[in-house]
């Protein structure tokens, strides 16, 4: 498996055997609409929404697995995904071009 260096090296180990990176900046993705048990980092309010990959943030042990006392490997690629506020919140009163960025792991994303 390829090893991918994550940015922000320092306090924590940042090189892990990781899954292949599937998305690149600019790709349109939809957040999976799932509700498994456990510790899930993907906010409920963003599930089912379509966004655009803003950047790749490195690959990290899967927190859903870490929460269950396993090693979370292979590491899951993490992306910053950009959504339109007006698409996420039906009653959004701000400017129509306002966006929200959320960091989401690859296994929660599907190509749109």
């Amino acid at each position, binding site marked *: 498996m390829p090893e991918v260096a994550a940015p922000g090296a320092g306090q924590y180990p940042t090189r892990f055997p990781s899954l292949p990176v599937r998305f690149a900046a600019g790709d349109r993705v939809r957040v999976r609409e799932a509700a498994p048990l*456990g*510790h899930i980092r993907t906010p409920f309010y963003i599930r089912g929404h379509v966004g655009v990959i803003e950047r790749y943030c490195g690959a990290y042990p899967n927190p*859903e697995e870490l929460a269950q006392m396993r090693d979370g490997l292979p590491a899951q690629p993490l992306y910053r995904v950009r959504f339109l506020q007006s698409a996420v919140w039906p009653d959004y009163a701000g400017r129509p071009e306002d966006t929200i960025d959320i960091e989401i792991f690859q296994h929660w994303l599907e190509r749109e």
Partner: protein
Amino acid sequence: MGGLPAGRVEPSEHDYAEWEQRVDALMVLLSGVKGGTPRMTVDELRKNIEALGPEAYDKLGYYERWVTSITQTMIQRGIITTDELGRKMEEIRARREDACRK
């Protein structure tokens, strides 16, 4: 909690009680970020906070949630047993009552 309306956010600074600082230090030591063998991850801390019932979540303060979650994790990992925990809590309660009587 869980996307429910929570009212206004009141930004304010406050000093942490000694026990709160100790709970924070406990997490630093157990997670191994300052060296030593890691005994738990921040993800386990979060999972066991999220597993609190809504009533307990609302009733407990921030570091009370932490110490409850850390304790639960130590039991899940087999580092302590529920029996040891119960006896230790009893011992401390008795010690405090004893100190109050003096």
